[in-house]
């Protein structure tokens, strides 16, 4: 992100943010409510565009792309995990995973089942979201996010609605993905989740107030 600002009326949700996330990094974006975390997440996730500045993804400025191109980038390069899980209520766990495949390329039930197996839910594949616990739903959400092998996984408060045990399971999955080279960007309030990341960026009032990569790599500022 180069000099990225997002302005809603008089509110500067992001204020001249400069930020570089390397491929394969596990980054936690932390900060109080209203600090601009979600806005940053939406922009990185190609669901919103900045008011000014450049957002380069693989060298392509997504700030200049149209709705259709942004949709294609979301589909091809980004996996999303939400605090509220956002599973489709009338589809089973495996069908929810297959929906991501459907929009990406080729729905393959066997592959979707493998993804569920990876998150420990092979035996719950035919269950509807309402028949799953919160932790199980979030794991389905993780399986859906990783099914298309995205370059980046964006997670918004992924453990916000989970108990400790399920939080541990999800963080373990993140560790696995990280070890495989997946870029992870996690927005969180949870200090423990933040501490699991290799880099923590703190936002306040739309500006980066701290970034431990500064000390590690000597770059990134707000």
């Amino acid at each position, binding site marked *: 992100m180069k000099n990225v600002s997002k302005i809603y009326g008089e509110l500067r949700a992001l204020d001249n943010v400069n930020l570089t*996330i*390397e*491929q*394969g*990094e596990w980054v936690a974006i932390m900060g109080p409510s209203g600090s601009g975390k*979600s806005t940053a*997440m*939406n922009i990185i*996730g190609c*669901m*919103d565009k900045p008011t000014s500045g450049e957002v380069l*993804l*693989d*060298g392509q400025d997504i700030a200049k792309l149209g709705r*259709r191109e942004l*949709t*294609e980038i*979301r*589909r*091809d*390069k980004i996996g*999303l995990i*939400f*605090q*509220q899980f*956002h599973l*489709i*209520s*009338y*589809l*089973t766990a495996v*069908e929810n995973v*297959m*929906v*991501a*495949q*459907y*929009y*990406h*390329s*080729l*729905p*393959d039930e066997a592959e979707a089942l493998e993804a569920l197996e990876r998150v420990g839910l092979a035996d719950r594949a035919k269950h*509807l979201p309402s028949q799953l616990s919160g932790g199980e739903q979030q794991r389905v959400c993780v399986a*859906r996010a990783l099914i*298309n*092998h*995205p*370059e980046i996984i964006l997670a*918004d408060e992924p453990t916000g609605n989970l108990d400790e045990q399920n939080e541990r399971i999800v963080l373990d999955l993140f560790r696995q993905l990280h*070890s*495989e*080279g*997946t*870029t992870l960007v996690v927005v969180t309030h949870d200090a423990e989740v933040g501490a699991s990341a290799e880099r923590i960026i703190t936002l306040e009032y739309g500006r980066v107030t701290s970034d431990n990569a500064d000390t590690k790599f000597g770059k990134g500022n707000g």
Partner: protein
Amino acid sequence: MTDKRQTVGTARTQGQAAESARTQGQATGTARTQAARRAMYFRMITASFARRFSRMVVALLAIIVGATVLSGLVTIYYDMPRQMGMQFRSYGANMILVPSDSAQGGMTRADIDQALAQVSNDELVGVSTYHYENCTINASPLVVAGADLEATRATSPYWYVTGEWPDEPGEVLVGLVEADFFSLEVGDTVTITHTLVASDDGRSALEESSVDFVVSGLLDTGGSEEEYFFISNDDMARLTQAEPSYNIAELSIQADAERLEALSEAISQEVPNVTPQLVKRLTTSETTVLTKLQALVFLVTVVVLALTMICVATTMTAVVTERRREIGLRKALGASDKSIVLEFMGEGLLQGALGGLIGAGLGFGFAQLVSTNVFNSSITFRPLLIPITVLAALVVTGLACALPVRNATTVDPALVLKGE
């Protein structure tokens, strides 16, 4: 992005994997991909339909009601000319044949058959011929009509008979006026006398022929028929001792006014001894009533379809509003506007097809019920109405879904992340 984690790359990079999957999909055959995508598409829309049935039921009911009324009323609309024709035939003949000037007082059976040849079997409901003769009972004059009584029964169903129609030789049906005059009751025996003009060696002589008849029934029509005695053609031949010479033939033809005019014209030209006359009052009334009824049915159908469309559109708007988060999620996962339209339209059209199919069946039952209660006859099933009803239901549902589905594409995927 720069690659600082090259050493970690034991697994393929995700970007390459995604690219590889897509390229592989293209290379291994678009057909397989398309088939898998189609299967998933139907899996999604049928799952939405089956597992959210309670949400869909209002729209489905609206479509079923609309399709039932459409199918039923269209069945009635197309069957109405036949039904009305049959009803109007019960008011008697709509064409009358009388002897022309060249017929010398009467028509032969050949003349009438020649005229009937112009009318197709499907159109001809019945024909009754009458041969009138002046006769006497105890020197009191009366008019006896020789007729094919079975045919008369078909063409004049409004005749009310106390007792029985004559079905044996020597039986007579007596009009109420004449029955009063001659004080006749059912079961009485009466001798009818006909005066014959015989020619003997160039001189005319009068001879009488008398036949005994049993009164089988008394005729009440409210018309001039009550002033006659009706006997069979065979009995008339016995009484007159001559070949019948018909004074009038009443035809009941199932056809509209235009066709009747054409038939009348054809008979005039083809059969010189016969002059056809249309019962204008009846044919005009039939056409007028039919036109008005069909217009009414058409209007009701249009109104019901419009109401169905409004109901489906309202339900679909509610569905789209209720599922904004799901739409946002799908878009966040990479669904294009086209995909969103196809999915919601697919769900709508699935409802349309199912509602149309059920409605087509129920519509026939509805039409049958109306026909039985209003026209006292069953209705003809038209198989073509099934695809037509389903198609109409699809069009109505498609139109009703268009605006709500278009609104669905405007949902902002960021809403999902924001949790709004």
